[in-house]
């Protein structure tokens, strides 16, 4: 427990010290919320207010940028620079390390979601979530699934230099196609077909239904199932592909 708290604190310091990464993974969804919220916050999207639609969408974008993209890039850089290998030579148990990294990522994401919800309330008059526990459960499930996918992706990235290119190539189109910014209803068929299998589509829908429609999380079995299945795929990829050592030569 002492080791876990020590490493958790370390991870938080490391995240906030790295300003560039903190900007892209943490602040960008907040900035997008402010920008797009002022553009179409009062329009109606899929029958709800634009600002409310966007708030849930940016929570979805936030899970993709913190738990998926940010985590994957950080872990590839640490692997290739030898930090992970170095840590394996210390008495810190590998599981304690990984759990600390994941919990730290979740804390960051949670802070981001709270900021988005407060900004939505203060600036765009979006109501506070009426089912906070359902929302918290959804955020935990989503963060876990996307973190598993992020760790799984590290096995496919060969170099630190390539990490942000590969990760952005995956996550930016995913964020847009999954309807975090716009409703996928008006998309052409092939984009909707892609959106219909992406996990972020379902996580965003889950969050939106809880925040806007006041749904209980257990009424969203289908969406949860898709997110969990994707998380399981990520977990298998992570178990098979996650490495502590940099690529040889």
């Amino acid at each position, binding site marked *: 427990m002492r*080791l876990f708290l*020590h490493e958790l604190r370390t991870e938080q*310091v490391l995240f906030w010290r790295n300003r560039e990464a903190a900007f892209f993974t943490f602040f960008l969804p907040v900035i997008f919320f402010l920008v797009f919220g002022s553009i179409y916050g009062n329009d109606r999207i899929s029958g709800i207010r634009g600002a409310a639609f966007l708030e849930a969408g940016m929570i979805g974008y936030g899970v993709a940028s913190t738990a998926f993209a940010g985590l994957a890039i950080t872990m590839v850089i640490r692997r290739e620079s030898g*930090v992970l290998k*170095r840590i394996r*030579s*210390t*008495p810190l148990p590998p599981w304690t390390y990984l759990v600390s990294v994941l919990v730290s990522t979740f804390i960051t994401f949670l802070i981001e979601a709270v900021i988005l919800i407060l900004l939505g309330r203060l600036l765009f008059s979006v109501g506070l979530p009426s089912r906070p526990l359902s929302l918290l459960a959804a955020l935990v499930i989503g963060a876990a699934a996307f973190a598993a996918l992020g760790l799984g992706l590290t096995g496919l990235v060969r170099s630190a230099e390539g990490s942000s290119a590969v990760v952005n190539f995956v996550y930016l189109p995913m964020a847009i196609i999954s309807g975090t910014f716009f409703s996928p209803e008006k998309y052409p068929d092939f984009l909707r077909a892609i959106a219909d299998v992406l996990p972020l589509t379902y996580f965003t829908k889950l969050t939106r239904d809880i925040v806007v429609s006041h749904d209980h999380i257990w009424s969203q079995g289908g969406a949860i199932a898709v997110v969990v299945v994707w998380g399981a795929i990520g977990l298998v990829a992570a178990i098979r592909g996650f490495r502590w050592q940099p690529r040889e030569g």
Partner: protein
Amino acid sequence: MTAVVVTGLRKSYGEHEALKGIEFTINRGEVFGLLGPNGAGKTTTVEILEGYRNRDAGDVQVLDVDPQHSGSAWRERIGVMLQSSSLYPNLTVRESLRVFAGYYARPRGADEVIEIVELGEKADARVRTLSGGQQRRLDLGLALVGDPELVFLDEPTTGFDPGARRSAWQTIRNLRELGKTVLLTTHYLDEAAQLADRVAVLRGGVIVREGAPAELTGGVVETEIRYRRNGGEVVERTHEPTQRLQELTAEAIARGEELEELEVRRPTLEDVYLELTSE
């Protein structure tokens, strides 16, 4: 008291035999140099000893534990400095040491380590602002912060300028005074000669020589005798320079000649090393 015992150690990568059955022993409190050109098998050896790689055959005991079946308690007792720098650029020197100190049950204080690796002026500087040599010294500091019994240093001064190298050498000498056992790999002969109590020379996965640096020269390379005769240079190599010189000089005196430009040269450590490691 031995710190490391290696017998019959073998390791292959596919077809390539990186280690072809090597043996050596490191005593406690000793600085042991593993010397050899790139690709000789130094890093493979060290990574097996550190527990990063599994061996194909042979027996390895590091602090009386097989690294292949080691745990956190064993890792409390070793310190590792990897070949490439592996640090957090946005932490300060002191923060970095505190982070790693937190992983150990009985760490050394961050300020004490800062003193050992002579980074006092940079204690509160961010790691990314340090020079290459300073980063390596911090790297060494991270290997020492757990107060280990045995320290692995994998090519600790590669890429240093001469001044930085001398200062790193002094730091490594300080380790001996702290009573640490050190396994140092290097491809610099002078580094091994300066720092190590004993040296094993590795070439192509085989230990070709082992002993104190000064002993390496003994008996390997023949002594060279050069002189000029009838305008041409004569070079002889012999294992018995005293005997041979007596013969040469006796003959020359008998002929009433001078052995012009007579030169007797004992091989330097460098010559021995080059001879041992050349293919």
